[in-house]
């Protein structure tokens, strides 16, 4: 594997990790909101 290939793979992995972290964070907030709404209801 050349350095360019490795850099490309790392860049893809990094961007996917960032998106996954954002999605998981949003889901945590969403489930918190759903729980509060259900408890209030």
């Amino acid at each position: 594997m050349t350095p360019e290939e490795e850099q490309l793979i790392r860049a893809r992995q990094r961007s996917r990790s960032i998106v996954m972290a954002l999605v998981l964070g949003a889901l945590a907030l969403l489930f918190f909101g759903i729980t509060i709404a259900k408890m209030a209801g």
Partner: protein
Amino acid sequence: MASNASLLSGDDAVSGVPIPADWRDFVALTKPRVMTLVVFTGLCGLLVAPGHLPPILAFTAILCIALGAGAAGALNQWYEADRDARMKRTARRPLPAGRMDRQAALHFGVGLSFFSVLLMGVAANWFAAAILAVSILFYVFVYTIWLKPRTAQNIVIGGAAGAFPPLIGWAAVTGGVAPLPIALFMLIFFWTPPHFWSLALFVRMDYANAGIPMLPVVAGEAATRRQILLYTGIMAAAALAPVVLGLTGLIYGAVALVGTGLFALMAVQVALHRESDPARMGPEKRLFKYSVLYLFLMFAAVVVDHWVHLA
């Protein structure tokens, strides 16, 4: 567990080393443009339903409709990757373009399907979740796998899959269904054939090359033009039914009358047009574009009409 090579993509592979698919390709797999109309019609169903759903739960219900539609789109692209590669319109999608591995698309689609249905059940109710599940299964198994490669009536029956969102939105609030969401279901159901066939007329060769028996490929252009007109007539009846049955008010009635009248006028132009060159199919392209705007307008009118009556 699958090997790294099987999990990673094709064309992006450098010197035999596979590259993970970009996250944007996963988004593309969900057919975001189609999702817009699905989300909007689902939102309208939710907004006109009697009762109250806390905003966070209403948001979650719409999110589930979007995710469910995205999941169905991903599974559709997973199953049709080979066919998509033979069509100019779809050849640049992540799978036919080789930017993503098929197995990754399958896992993504199945995972998203389960997640959307379970979340709908938890946040709204299990009746809405059941309709969402049926709509995903209908789109994947009845439309994509069974009807689409076998019959020219594929989008007539398969159109039901895209008609579920107003029912789901309504059910998320009420836990049941009623005449109005059923009327909205019928509107989308009968809108689908003229919408798709107007597109199929000017991308006929694409469908023919991919071996998909769309009506213009199987029955010819003249028959397709007649069928567009016929289904526009049925769609017009479905569009006016809510106001005739007293399910909506005159605001919707006025929009339905003018909007459907324009639709019918364009359908007549398509029916009378005799042109086989896609580059010269102006009326067909116009009808296709207008049909999208038409559905947005009709559903927006249902909501405005409902709000005016509440005020």
